[in-house]
């Protein structure tokens, strides 16, 4: 770990350092806004460093790369964390979250995601993944007052720990079959001729299971609805936008090196993607709880992203990265609106709570409607361009049947996305049940949601700029 290597890892260190600094400050300084300001400054600094200061050495310690691909994702995750910090100021204060811990944990999660995206070796991936997963265990149950939070935390923890064990064993087996953790070479273990090929394949199987759990693909997705429902809205947003995105960005690197091995994996990926799309859509149909519906919708969307990965060529990866950026924006936006709507006595989760919201909260409701249409993949939102890219990738890879399953899923998914829009705009005039009337939402929250709204619409109408930037990464 020469000085040069440390220097090229500087942006991540800035994030991690800031996290520790805030943790310490938190003991004395209980004023949340200033800590949030510090956190956002840290993120901004990390982002600026990543973009402006060229790294000296491309790979750090054989585990993390500092190439443009990693830097792009660092900027993205820094932005996600900064956004979460800003949009949850009122939410955290209302629930008397410990300011120091709240900001530091979020920053550390950002650092972990950046590391995961930058991983070029199985160890790097393992460390990055575990870094922010541990933080998420705490963040999900952060709201001590809510039983649901504890239950969600518990479920995520137990399942997460088991998945980590499976992941570790997978890494061990791949290491055993290939002799190295470094990714492109580690894949050699699976190649046709090598004697320890069975070990490699089993190792790959276990990796896929762990990845499946992390990005909530169907057989391993059961935790998703409960955790989204229990976790505080900002954390659920981070979970949807950040954790799944970071995992997939690592998977893109993982699969890029596999080349020939893809032939073995395609049936599995095909099955996982198809199942996720279909069963996710079916499960979401009957949901009355908005957060559970968004959870199942994330299962479906991960199925779409996986469909993009089936195309080994660069276009497929471009489509996946674009999809991840879009999905981050739309998830943050949707959960941002939920955060803005949640008042003192809790978050508005039941559909009934949203009845007639379209007329009482014009901006936030309109934003939520656009996010729903974006998730449904209807132009002119970014969702359409994302789906277009993924469908093109699937057809180019010759998986027309999967594309048809995707079409069926996105058609049926329209129903439950529209259920929310209908509740907001088209239900009878009556005011919502006394339960939790929607909170007005502060200007800061409205601004954050506005940023996401602008992003989603811009991706829909003029995705050219982002597509070019992503093209230059791969």
């Amino acid at each position, binding site marked *: 770990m020469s000085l040069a290597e440390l220097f090229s890892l500087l942006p991540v260190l800035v994030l991690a350092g800031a996290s520790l600094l805030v943790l310490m400050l938190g003991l004395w300084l209980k004023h949340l806004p200033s800590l949030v300001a510090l956190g956002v400054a840290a993120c901004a600094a990390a982002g600026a460093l990543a973009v402006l200061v060229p790294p000296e050495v491309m790979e750090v310690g054989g585990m993390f790369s500092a190439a443009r691909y990693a830097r792009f994702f660092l900027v993205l995750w820094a932005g996600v964390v900064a956004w979460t910090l800003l949009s949850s100021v009122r939410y955290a204060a209302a629930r008397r979250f410990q300011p120091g811990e709240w900001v530091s944990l979020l920053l550390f999660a950002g650092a972990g995601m950046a590391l995961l995206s930058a991983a070029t070796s199985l160890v790097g991936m393992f460390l990055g993944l575990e870094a922010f997963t541990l933080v998420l265990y705490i963040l999900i149950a952060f709201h001590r007052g809510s039983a649901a939070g*504890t239950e*969600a935390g518990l479920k995520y923890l137990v399942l997460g720990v088991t998945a980590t064990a499976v992941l570790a064993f997978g890494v061990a087996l791949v*290491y055993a079959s290939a002799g190295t953790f470094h990714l492109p070479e580690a894949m050699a273990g699976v190649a046709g001729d090598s004697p320890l090929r069975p070990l490699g394949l089993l190792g790959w199987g276990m990796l896929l299971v762990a990845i499946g759990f992390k990005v909530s693909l169907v057989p391993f997705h059961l935790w998703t609805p409960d955790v989204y429902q229990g976790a505080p809205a900002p954390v659920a947003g981070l979970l949807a936008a950040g954790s799944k995105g970071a995992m997939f960005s690592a998977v893109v690197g993982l699969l890029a090196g596999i080349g020939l091995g893809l032939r073995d994996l395609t049936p599995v990926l095909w099955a996982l993607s198809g199942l996720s799309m279909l069963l996710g859509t079916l499960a979401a149909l009957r949901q009355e709880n908005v957060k559970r519906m968004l959870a199942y919708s994330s299962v479906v969307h991960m199925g779409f992203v996986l469909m993009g990965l089936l195309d080994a060529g660069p276009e497929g990866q471009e489509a996946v990265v674009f999809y991840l950026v879009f999905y981050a924006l739309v998830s943050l936006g949707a959960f941002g609106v939920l955060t803005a709507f949640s008042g003192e006595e809790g978050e508005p989760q039941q559909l009934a709570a949203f009845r007639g919201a379209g007329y009482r909260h014009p901006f936030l409701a309109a934003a939520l409607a656009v996010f729903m249409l974006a998730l449904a993949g209807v132009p002119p939102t970014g969702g359409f361009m994302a789906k277009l890219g993924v469908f093109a990738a699937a057809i180019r890879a010759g998986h027309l049947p999967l594309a048809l399953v995707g079409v069926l899923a996105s058609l049926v998914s329209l129903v439950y996305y529209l259920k929310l829009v209908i509740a907001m705009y088209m239900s009878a005039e009556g005011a919502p049940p006394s339960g939790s009337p929607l909170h007005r939402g502060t200007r800061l929250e409205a601004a954050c949601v506005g940023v996401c709204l602008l992003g989603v619409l811009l991706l829909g109408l003029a995705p050219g700029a982002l597509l070019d930037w992503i093209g230059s990464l791969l």
Partner: protein
Amino acid sequence: MIVPFAHVLVVSAVMFVLGLGAVLLRRNLILILIGVEIMLNGVGLALVGASALWQRADGQVLVVFLMALTAAEVAISLAMVVAMKRRKGSLDADVFRDLRG
């Protein structure tokens, strides 16, 4: 290698499966966590074996990482156990059943 890698692999696989069995069959949360620890130790063994097979040290480095990681997990898990005990008074993993459907 003093012991053929296959034997190491079998032992670690057995430990992994036993740990998984404990996780699945046991209801008490602490015993589930113990099961996970057993699985992780199995992984550690496999890693050491593989590192010996390939005569490279990075396998063992990962084992050290693994131990540190396991310690952190246990800390958080126990914190969760304490929170659960205070809230529900029981350690049965299935006692939490409000979030479903």
